[in-house]
Every structure is written in structure tokens, then in C-alpha cells.
């Protein structure tokens, strides 16, 4: 399974640092690609913009998608991914600060695979990251692409 990347969509560098730290501490071996806004995330996934020419047949193992993002927000990114056949089954975990009911409902309606609130307490944060890694990277199975 090596070579499969984890795409982290996170605009806040502190959160990015903490997330990477947590992933590392969770013994996740996959490469982590970080994009800092929605547009960049879409460019990466669809091989456009800065990622022009990237082999888009290689999809991330999972996407940790924040909702509050510059340019194009998380829910819009999710909607675009679910519109595209290729990315329709891509595991997308909403990883965000709030647990607003509205956000949760919208996310699931758009086809999010999970919704996880980032705990304030880092120990819990770490635990959550660990669990995600175990579940989505090890336990969860996805069909071979096409």
C-alpha cells in the first residue's frame, strides 16, 4: 500500500504542523501532501493549475478536509469531488474545528465519509488521528480503481 498519499487540506500552518505531528506520532507511513486552500486541493486532485500534468490516476488514500478554507471552502471541494466520477468514491474525512449541526448535515449530504471534530486537547487530537489512520488506511477497503 506504500506510495498512497494522504491529502491534507489545511490553511492554518499551526494546524498543519499539529496534524503532521499527530500523523507521525500515529506511525502513519504514507506520504502526506498538504494543500493550503480549496483551489489547490482541486488542482491537485484534478491535475490542474500548479499540479498540471500530475498523474491524476493516482488518488490519495484519504483526504483530511478542513471546512473553513480560503478561495473555495471545504464543502464546495467535496461537492466537486463527488461530481467527478473518478473521485466520487475517494474517502473524504471532514476534519474541522466546529461541530455545528449544519456543517455535519451538509457534509454528509454531499457524501463525506466521516466527520471528525479536531479536539482541543492534543492527546485526544492524537488519538483521533491514530484512529483515523487505523481505520481508513488499514481497515477500510476500497475497490480497485476501475
Amino acid at each position: 500500500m506504500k506510495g498512497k498519499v494522504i491529502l491534507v487540506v489545511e490553511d492554518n500552518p499551526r494546524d498543519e504542523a499539529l496534524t503532521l505531528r499527530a500523523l507521525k506520532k500515529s506511525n502513519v507511513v504514507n506520504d502526506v501532501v498538504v494543500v493550503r486552500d480549496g483551489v489547490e486541493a482541486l488542482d491537485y486532485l484534478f491535475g490542474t493549475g500548479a499540479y498540471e500534468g500530475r498523474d491524476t490516476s493516482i488518488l490519495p488514500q484519504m483526504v483530511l478536509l478542513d471546512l473553513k478554507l480560503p478561495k473555495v471552502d471545504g464543502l464546495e471541494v467535496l461537492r466537486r469531488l463527488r461530481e467527478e466520477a473518478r473521485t466520487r468514491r475517494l474517502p473524504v474525512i471532514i476534519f474541522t474545528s466546529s461541530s455545528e449541526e449544519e456543517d455535519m448535515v451538509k457534509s454528509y449530504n454531499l457524501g463525506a465519509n466521516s466527520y471528525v471534530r479536531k479536539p482541543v486537547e492534543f492527546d485526544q487530537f492524537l488519538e483521533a488521528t491514530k484512529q483515523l489512520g487505523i481505520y481508513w488506511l488499514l481497515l477500510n477497503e476500497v475497490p480497485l480503481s476501475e
Partner: protein
Amino acid sequence: MELTQTSSLRITRLQDFSLVTGILVATFGFVLLLVSLLNLTSLVDSIANLTSIKANTAVTFVLTGISLSLIVRHQKWNRLILVLSSLVTVLALITLVDFSLNSEPSIDKPVRMAPAAAVAIVLIGVSLATLAIPRAVSLAQGVAITVLLFGFIPLIGYAYNVESLYSFGTYSSIPLLTAICFVLLSLGILSARGDEGLMKYVLGESVGGIMARRLLPAALVLPVVIGWFRLQGQRLGYFDASMGTALLAFTHVVVFFLLILFNARLLRRTEHERVASVAEAARLSMEVQEHLSERNAATMRVTQSQAQLTDLIDSASDAIIVADGQQRVTLFNPAAEKMFILNERDVLGKPISQIINVDQLPDYLPRPQRFSQAKPYLIPAVDSEGRKLQLETSISHLESARGKSSTFILRDVSERRRAEQVAKESEERLHTVIENLSEGLVIADLDGQILHFNRAAIRNHGFNTLDECLLKVSDFAKLLELSTPDGRILPLEEWPLPKVIAGEKLRDYEVRVRRLDRNWYRIFNYGGEIVEEPNGRPLAFLTATDITERKLAEKQIHRLNEELEQRVSDRTAQLQAANKELEAFSYSVSHDLRAPLRHINGFSQALLEDYEDKLDETGKGYLNEVRGASQEMAQLIDDVLELARVTRSEMHREPVNLSELAEGVFAELKNIDKDRSVDIHIQSDLAVQCDRRLMRIVLVNLIGNAWKFTSQRPRAEVTFGQAQENGEKVYFVRDNGAGFDMAFAGKLFGAFQRLHTVSEFEGTGIGLATVQRIIHRHGGRVWAEGKPNEGATFYFALPNFGEKGDERESDTSS
């Protein structure tokens, strides 16, 4: 008139003369009888020196004298007069028969009555007898004139000494006194009936009468007197026979010429007087005529007014009865006939008391003079069929030349009075109601002629008096302009009244009425239809309700409603904007406020881990405080966000089993805090209408608090149950924990208010505020009772929605 009086006076005097004559002759005869009976004939002869009068002649004188007197004074004694005069005639006839037989006189001894005297006496008897017979006066008077001549001839004979004139034949002569008596008797007979028979020509007022009265005495006396003078003159030898005759003729001519001349003058004067008196009479006649024509005119007027009066009496609806002074009916008009069911001809002349009981009328009899009472009397009466009448009676009495009369005017008020009174009262009542209706009422006939406006209608249409309104409906077009509520001007045929007259039943016909003559308009709600009077006459009536104020009020309300709606929508928009802001705020709080806390916490942790060897215990302790504080802050943010969410979120009421909900909460708490041993009491099946999610938050907070504040109790006890308080269902959560001072009870439900230190019991102080907000959103109440160290009880009451409607009502009202 004067002439007639003169004439009648003359007749009376003649009759007196006639009476005197009769008495004189009778007395004379009586004296002669006495003389002959006492054989004093010689004495008489010596005194009178006359041929002695025979006894039978004397008897006839007595009888004729009495007869004449009786004729004058006692005309009704006709039979006695006839008997007496017949006796006289018979006596004289016997003498005459005696003469004709030439025999020994049977009565007259020693000297016979002269045959001429006997004839005269027969004539006198016949004359007297016929005088007693009516219509034979002329004959009697003719006979009397004959007798007069009989008497006159002997008198001339005595005057001229011509024996042959008073001595007839050889047997006897007529004595002078007898001849005088004949003259007197005949004059007496003529005078006795001066106004009848032949004498009326002499005594009448005609010119002939006057002439006869003047010339007759002269014709009778003057020739005799002049003849006597001629004879004396001749005897004494003053002139011879031829001269005497000539003188006689001349004297006659002169005397009669003068006499006739004198009479002619007199007659002429009389004629003048006559003409004058005729003219006077004509004038008088004219006056009389004028007077008469005036009287005729007056009579005409009287006749006219009488006709009117008769008409009036005949056509009067009141019975009129007139009675005369004897209280007998003289007039009974048709109304009276109808009232009493009697015919006038049957009651005329009958006593009034048979019809009306006049005794019942006070003042009627005691005051027979004219009077009229002001107030009619009420007297009972009965008609000819026995029906009882109650008569309103007025009487007037009148006394005129034709006598007294009383007029009764009667009106039957028995049944009618009551009916009338009832009708009148009913009408007055209806009138009062109609006039006091606040609704306008208009009545018209089907020609559109207004018959009535009630007061409200007059006022509502801007008029002052009923008279102003009694027009044709078309006349109102000059005064009013009618239009629909949206301003279309109505032609006359679309006006309410013409529509009703056309047969339409109007209901709620809203019309704007404008007065053209002033700045005035009202809005009316018209209704109406055609109704029929009991007599079948159709009437159009219209009701007009002035709804101007109502319309204005409606307009105002409409405007206010619009304003209110506008304000509500403004408010709602503001509220929505505020909510949006709040949501945006909450959103950003939950995202952006938590992120730094997470960073503080995360990096503190990283510091502790990565630089563990460079930090002493104090440094590590500080970093742990930083982490704790960040966690607390995160909890606070979560609680505040929940409080905000409780306010914002929509409510979904449904039946909720609170007991089950509480059990779930306890189970969670036990799961989290596995070390705690708490006695839990839950009353089962407490169901209520509420929002499940919000009510769960309530129980989480209340039970959580109880759980928390009993943590220091060796035997913790928490009860969830229901109680009745003033008939209201009250739910409670009771614990035997730390409790609180009631002095601070008011602070319990305020946000961020805490009665305990964080070191004692952790918490943000927002839980009870959230509870209160949720209960209030349900329309309920929440309160608490407690004592320090003895525990606390938190109560909440919810209005009972969704169960039986009437229960809900009684619950909300209690």
C-alpha cells in the same frame, strides 16, 4: 187700512142706529098697546091729534122692533127672529085677507088697519125674515126700500095736506106715527146690514158709495122741502101755479147744479187723494216688493245653508238627533238610523227618552236654557236589536221663536273606543320605535313618492325636517350623488329605492352618498324590499345603516394591520438578520475561537514532549496549566454555543417519555463515572409534549448537576419525579447534595453564575441558564428549592400541549 177702519166704524154706527130704531119702534108699539088696553085712546088722540093706531098695528110694531134689535145684536137667534117676523107677516096677512073678503073685520075693531099699512107690515115681516136668512140680504133690503117708499108717501101727503096720499080708499088711512115708524123700520133694516147686499154700494169706499151717501139725503129731502115752500107760496098768493112750477124747476136746477158742482169738487179732491194714495200704495208696494226680493235672497241663502246643513246632517258620521220642547224627536239622521237600527219615520214624534236615557245626562233637565257642554258625556244605550252601545254624547239646547229644541250628537265608542285605543297605542309604540331606531327607515310608494323618513334617516341623509324629505325619489338627484364604494357614480335606476321598486330585494347594498349642496358624504348599507299593507297597497321600504364610522374604522384597522404587518416583517427581517449574525458569530466562534486553543494546547504538549529534558518540573507544571486552561476555555465555548443554539433552534413538539429520557441520561453518567454509586429513583411513564432534543439538554443539565453536587456524599441520592402543585403537574430533580442558600436562589439561573467554586465543583455556570431558556421556550416555569448541605430540588412545569383540548384549557388557565 184706514179706509177699512172708517168703513167698519160707519157700519157699527149704522148698526147702533138700527138698534135704536128697533128699540124706539118696539117701545112705541108697547106704549100704543098700553093705551089701547087701558082705553086711553081718546087721551092719546087729544095729545097726538092723529088717526088712532090700531092695537094689532101696535103688536106688529113691538114684534118688529124686537126682531130688528135681535138682528143687530143677536144674529144667532135666527129662529126666534124668523118666528117673530113670521108672526108679524101672518097678522098683517090676516088683515089683508079680511079686507079682500070685505067681511066683518075679525081683529080690527072698531077701526080696521089700513090695507096699505097691512101691505107695508107684510113687507116688513118678509124683509126681517129674509134678513135673518144668509145670502138674502139684497132681497131683504129691496123689500125694505119698498117699505120706505110706503112710509114716505103718507109723510108727503101729511106735509102737503094731500089726503089721498095717506088715506087709501074709504076705510082707513095711515096715521102719521105709523108712517114714521115704517120709515124708521125700513131705515133700521137697511142699516142693520150696511156691509152687505144693496147697502154695500152706498156704504162702500168706492166713488159711487161716496156720491150715493152725499146725494141720496138731498134727493130724498130737498124736493120735498122745495115743493112745500112752492105750495105755501102759491097758497099765500105770492105767485100762481105756473110761476110756482117755474120757481120749483129753477130752484131744483140751482140746488142740484150747486149740489152736483160741490160734489164734483169733493169727488175730484177725493180722487186726488185716491190717486195720491194709489201712488203711495204703489210706492209701498214697490218697497214691499224690494223687501220681498231681499227676503227672497235671504230666503235663498237660508235655503242654501239649510241644504248644506241637511247635507251635513245626512252625511255626518255621528248620530244627530233633534228633539223639540216636548222632548219629541224632530230629526233623526242616517247615522242615527244606522246606530240604533231604526227608521227616521218610525221615531219622529216619539219621546227622545225612548232612544236615549236623557235622565242620565247631568245638567240636562235642570237647565232647560240654551247650553252646550264642553266635554261629551258618556252614556250607555241599547239599539233596536239589543246591542249595547256606549255613547259619547254632546247636547246643545236652543230656544228660538219656533220654540225650544235640543240637539244630541252621539258617537258610539263602545267597542271602537277600545279598538281605536289599542290601535292608537300600538301605532304610537311603533312610531316611537321607528323614530328612535338608529337605523334609517324610508317608506315610499311604488311611484317613488317618499311617504316617510324616520328621524335617523332624516339625520343620516343630512336633512333637518321630514318635510324636506317628502319628495319623489327622482327629486333627490338634485341633492344627492350616489356612488359605489370604488367611486362609480350610480344612475338613478341603480339607487337603492328604485331598485327596490323594480322588485329587487336589497341586502347590504353599500353606497356612498354625497350631498351636492355641501361638502358632505356618508356611506350607507341599504336594504329593503316591497311589502304589502293589510289593505293590499304595496309599499317600498328601505333601511339605511350609516356605516361611515365603521368604514373609517375598518380603513383605519386595515391601515394599522398593514402597518403592523410591515412592522412585523421589518422586525422579522431584523430578527432574521440578527439571527444570521448570531449564527455567523456562533459559526466563527466554534471554528475560529477553538483553533487557537487547540494550537495552545497542541504546542504545549509538543513542548512537553519534545523538550522534556530541558524543562524542570515547574516548567512542565506551567505548561500543563496552559493545557488545562485551554481545555476549560474550549468547554466554555461549547456551552455558550449550546445556549445560543437552544435559543435559535426550531421547536418540534412531540409526546416524550421523560422517564425514559432520564434513564438514558443516568446511564451515560454512570458510564462516564463508573466509580460513583448513586441511588437513582425515576418515576416511570412521565410523558409530556415537548421538544425531545431540548428536553434532553434540560435533563442532562439538571441530572448532571445532581450527579455532580452529590459527588461528596457517601450515599448519593437523585430522584426524578412528578408532583401536583395547585393542580399543576410539576416535574422535579431532587438530590441530597451540597444544596444552596435560598438567598442566592435568584442567581441560580443566570448565565456564568456559580454558587460554588470551581475547585469544589467544576462547571461553566451556563447549564441552568440553558435549562431556564429551554423551559421558557416551552412556555413553562422553572425554579429551585434548597438548603446548604441538605440538597436541592429543581422544579419545572410545562403547559400541557397536545392532550385533550379542554384539559389543556383548564391547565393553562390554572
